[in-house]
């Protein structure tokens, strides 16, 4: 049922694996409004997959379907070859799908370090009772996970703000902390909802570099939504284009760029 066959090698020599997630005929409705209409696409292991489209195309809804915040009325989600039943968002997260939000959802009252530590919940197994007395396993876990978090902090160059409460940080740094928290989960798929929205040119360059580095260094599969076409074309291996809840294009950046339906959607041709 699933073509999880051999992958391919990109121009810059990265190995892309088999299909890790497949969306099949997804339809999502809010009352009478159809947000996503019969969309299918897949995400391969190790690739950077972009979802683009004009405002209101249903990109964020799609990301919310993948991360379990919305359950589609029709269609199936296959994760690592298995059909995924309807799930709560926290269950999806525990399966190894981490995400960031368009409007940043961080724990403002907590320090940067604590924020990123919450991302490690999947890796920490000590029960409530063990923690209440904080002995043995719980203590060892805390130390191990703390080390992993410190590595991510180094990687994203946010050492200088480790102890700062997140609420006090500027926008660009908040975005980076949110990425760090998602990364801390060592996700098999990382979902980024407009990681560069509202950033200036310099911050955008930084963020692009981090996204590429994360993919390169850890081999993390990344699915992202982005408005900035230049950024998307530079970053991604394959692109899905959505318009009015429908898929109008799917392929490499070059294929998509020369697709007439995509050009029409972006330049604005009368819809019949």
């Amino acid at each position, binding site marked *: 049922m699933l073509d999880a066959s051999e992958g391919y090698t990109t121009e810059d020599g990265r190995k892309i694996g088999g299909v890790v997630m497949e969306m099949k005929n997804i339809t999502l409705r809010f009352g009478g409004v159809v947000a996503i209409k019969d969309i299918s696409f897949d995400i391969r292991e190790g690739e950077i997959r972009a979802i683009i489209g004009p405002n209101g195309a249903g990109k964020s809804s799609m990301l919310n379907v993948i991360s379990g915040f919305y359950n589609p009325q029709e269609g199936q989600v296959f994760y690592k070859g298995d059909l995924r039943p309807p799930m*709560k968002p*926290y269950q999806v997260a525990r399966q190894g799908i981490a995400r960031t939000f368009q409007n940043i959802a961080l724990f403002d009252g*907590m320090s940067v370090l604590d924020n990123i530590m919450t991302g490690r*919940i999947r890796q920490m197994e000590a029960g409530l009772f063990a923690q209440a007395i904080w002995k043995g396993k719980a203590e060892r876990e805390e130390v191990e996970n703390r080390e992993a978090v410190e590595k991510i902090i180094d990687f994203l160059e946010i050492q200088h703000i480790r102890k700062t409460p997140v609420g006090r940080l500027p926008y660009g740094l908040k975005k980076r902390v949110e990425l760090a928290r998602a990364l801390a989960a060592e996700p098999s798929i990382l979902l980024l909802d407009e990681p560069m929205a509202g950033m200036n040119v310099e911050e955008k360059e930084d963020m692009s570099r981090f996204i590429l580095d994360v993919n390169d260094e850890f081999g993390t599969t990344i699915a992202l939504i982005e408005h900035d076409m230049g950024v998307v074309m530079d970053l991604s291996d394959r692109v899905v284009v959505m318009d009015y809840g429908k898929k109008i294009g799917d392929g490499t950046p070059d294929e998509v760029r020369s697709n007439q339906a995509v050009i029409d959607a972006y330049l604005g041709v009368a819809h019949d």
Partner: protein
Amino acid sequence: MPEQLLWGMEVFLNGLMAGVLYALVALGFVLIFKASGIFNFSQGVMALFAALTLVGIMEGQVPFSHLINAVFGTEIHHFGWHVPALAAILLTMVVMVLLAWLVNHFIFRHLVNQEPIILFMATIGLAYFLEGFGDIMWGADIKKLDVGLPQGINGTIDEVTYNLFGYGFFIDNLDLWATFIAILLVIGLVLFAQYSKHGRAMRAVADDHQAALSVGISLNFIWVMVWSLAGFVAIVAGIMWGTKSGVQFSLSLIALKALPVLMLGGFTSIPGAIVGGLIIGVGEKLFEFTFGGMMGGATENWFAYVLALIVLVFRPQGLFGEKIIERV
């Protein structure tokens, strides 16, 4: 040393001890408010319910015996066994966790994203329900609670102070124990909240539901956990107050004494609840001692509220609360 000063010191110390008990009740409020934004009016009744359950288990009382006797015409009251205090406390903890689960499952799970005032009303309902439920389950008579905590004047302190100042301080052993246990409880709670996975998850849920879900935190689990913690605090408060003045339904009114403590300390601060409790405990005892005579006594009934009112005028967020700044 002048006698007046010595009396003042004794009153001060006793005030500190009374303050610890206020702080204990306030602590239960702060825990739930911090993690779920619910002002839990039923915290006092939870303490009462915990104390009733503890006595009931220790004495081997048959739950709902009045109801059973009325319906079936039987004459049962007790199983005829006595449960040791420690085992009874553990069983009461189990009951409080069960209560936490029921409260979340049947009430607050359905009220997610509702206005705070609606959640507050729900806790008022819960308070009245629990009070009635405790009554049906364990009976309305005043019960004696004795879990083996020492009571009465502390001989050592009396002797030492007598040798030092020529006047022996009266400090109740129970108050000393209450202080000691409260300190342990607070240290434990703070460590748990700051340095454990679930403590962090608790703070995360308090901060942002969506973000908490996205990192794999189950909101329902955290809410049950928080209500259970508040239940444990209620057990401790119930034991202390119950031992001091007997387990009776007026115990639920101590919740009202916690309100000024919270206004003073701030609704979101655990240290604030402690300091607020101590200030009010000491304040009302010293005020009664110095001015009580002039005003015809009984100032303890209103002093805490007046103090809270004054704090509200100058620092609406309390002494330790987070300052709320609205950006325009």
